[in-house]
């Protein structure tokens, strides 16, 4: 069979295969993103009339103390969320993988929060954690413990949204890691056992290194997920108390869709946010690839 010459016509085929998807992606993601950047250079309160303001929206945002407070909240939330959800889902995946009975039922149980509507998640937890009549505080009072204002104290409210975020996403990330675990050759563990390796040593020396690529995917997805958190927080705390749980997506949403509408300002905040999230994701990816290559 004759070898194909490099750069000949058949190389176009792969691009044609992805073309339909790229068209949809371009139309509904890339085009709005470019248009969003364009709008960030204008001032508009109605989406019909636009006044060119150059970089004024960016200057306004970067000099707005509320923006920086929101940025700080977002960073705190994302770091804590990524660390906790990765560690918890890793631990849970290892436990589930070692489970002999009821594995399917347990997996389903942990996956349930993933399929619940975020709005419902927010409402459920707001009822559970309300200071006056919330389930948690009723239980605490029942055993003579103080009943804290989970959604009233700024620090506690931040901890609450992080933990609820972990609860919601735990099942999803556990499933990804479980799939990674099941692709590890069981003979490696057999050999380690024969050599007298403890369970902890097996985890440290076999599981974690071989699971690194999957863990990196989880970290990247969790970071994106953390940066994008909004819906359940909106129904749980409304960004309160006193803005303590207002994250960046809520800041953008409020400027874009709540009176007074400021499309340009919201778009500028969106552009900055995109650059940051893209940068962090790429950094994660590159660090992961470098470690993989080592």
């Amino acid at each position: 069979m004759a070898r194909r010459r490099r750069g000949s016509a058949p190389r176009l085929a792969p691009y044609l295969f992805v073309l339909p998807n790229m068209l949809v992606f371009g139309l509904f993601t890339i085009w709005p993103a470019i248009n969003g950047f364009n709008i960030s250079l204008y001032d508009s309160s109605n989406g019909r009339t636009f006044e060119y303001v150059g970089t004024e929206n960016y200057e306004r945002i970067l000099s707005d103390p509320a923006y920086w407070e929101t940025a700080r909240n977002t960073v705190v939330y994302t770091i804590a969320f990524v660390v906790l959800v990765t560690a918890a889902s890793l631990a849970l995946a290892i436990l589930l993988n070692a489970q002999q009975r009821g594995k399917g039922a347990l997996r389903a149980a942990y996956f349930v929060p993933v399929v619940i509507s975020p709005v419902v998640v927010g409402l459920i937890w707001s009822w559970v954690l309300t200071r006056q009549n919330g389930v948690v505080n009723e239980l605490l009072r029942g055993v003579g413990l103080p009943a804290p204002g989970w959604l009233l104290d700024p620090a506690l409210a931040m901890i609450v949204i992080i933990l609820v975020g972990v609860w919601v996403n735990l099942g999803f990330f556990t499933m990804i890691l479980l799939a990674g675990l099941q692709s590890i050759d069981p003979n490696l563990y057999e050999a380690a056992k024969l050599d007298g390796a403890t369970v902890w040593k097996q985890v440290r020396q076999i599981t974690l290194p071989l699971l690194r690529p999957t863990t990196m995917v989880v970290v990247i997805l969790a970071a994106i997920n953390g940066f994008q958190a909004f819906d359940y927080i909106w129904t749980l705390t409304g960004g309160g108390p006193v803005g303590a749980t207002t994250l960046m997506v809520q800041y953008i949403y409020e400027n874009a869709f709540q009176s007074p509408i400021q499309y340009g300002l919201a778009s500028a905040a969106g552009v900055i946010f995109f650059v940051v999230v893209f940068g962090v994701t790429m950094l994660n990816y590159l660090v992961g690839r470098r470690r993989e290559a080592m």
Partner: protein
Amino acid sequence: MTRRTLRTFTAATALCLSAALVACSPGTTEEEPAAPAGDGTIDPAEFEGKTLEYVYFTDGPDEEATRELIADFEEETGATVELSIVPFDGLEQTLQSRISGGNSPDVARVANWRPYEDVLIDMTGYFGEDYPDQFIEGIAAGALGADGGMLAVPSDQTMNGPLVNVEAFEKAGVELPTAEDPWDWESMIADLEKVQQANDMEFAFAIDKSGHRISTVLNQFGTGFFNADGEVALDDAKAAEALGLLDELMQSGAASKDFWLEQGSRYAGANEIFLAEEVPLYLSGNWQVGLFAEAAEFEWAAVPNPCGENCGGFPGGKYMVAFEDGPEPELAAYFVEWMNRTENQEKLDQLASWLPTRNDLVESGIEYPNRGEDMSVFLADVAETPEDAYATAAHPGFDEAATVLIEEFDKTVAGQQDVGTTVSSLHATLDELAAR
């Protein structure tokens, strides 16, 4: 195609696309003043067979009343009205998206018409320069555009005021206030604490988390955001006194601090606290009458607002607007006018427990079939409410100022800043808004 060629082609396309987009304005760059769309004559006979879309948000029982009136309109004109119900929270977003997408509805019910100012029909173009005179002066003034055209028709007004649990007051042996002998804030709080204790209630006082409702208290303490000339009218000392009192109520537990802070930046009604009989008095407004008539399992009543330097409450209201870019602008203008004729507004007010906006209906009064006495209390407070309160409510910057008031007052309630700082921040915002 080589890989290099493909890359070059992709990069060049993306660059050209971006450059072209960035060079383009996403819309028109100049605000176009709204012009009267009509020629002053409308012939209702032409509307037979035509269809009109009315985008509507509902406060509760008013939807059925509106449908009933629409049925009358359809019978009279032969036109069809499609009622599109949207949630209040998404109203502005929905309308703006539709208008900018070239899919404007004909008519909408809105709480704030100014975001659509450039696409609204001037009703005086169809119904004459003196058309605004049919409505209460303070409210009509709030419906006029910059060039004096009437861009919105006030369809119902709201009046903030207290609702009380009558059974709880009777059990405590505490007299309810009357229009002749109203409470002041001090006597009201003292009475409420007595009622709270006698009934073992959780709180003494409840108020919605709303800048509009706090404006009621500011008004009673003799101050507000703006005066009739659009200038800042906030008296810092009086505002600090009013906000200090509300903060004290929450810090002492007489009002729910939890309710206030757990809502974040969202609006929240405290009606559930009142309906659960956890509080003897709830400062809200007349729109609760229809809801409580159906939902309250105890005897309740509206009572006159407490008097401080001023009496009365704080006005609000909804407007009907007709869009000039809608499919049937003439029919839209006619429908808005028809819905707000004396006999039609009266019918709607009676069925929906609304307060009228027309001078003739305010003068003649309305006989409400249900809870008429409560509606009369709110109507009486309309007359007690000072002009500056109407000016504040109608000011284009009111919504933004109210949002800042809530954000800053939250910090006071959370113990992060004193009342003086809250008032200073509010004053700075008002100065900025007045200068726009």
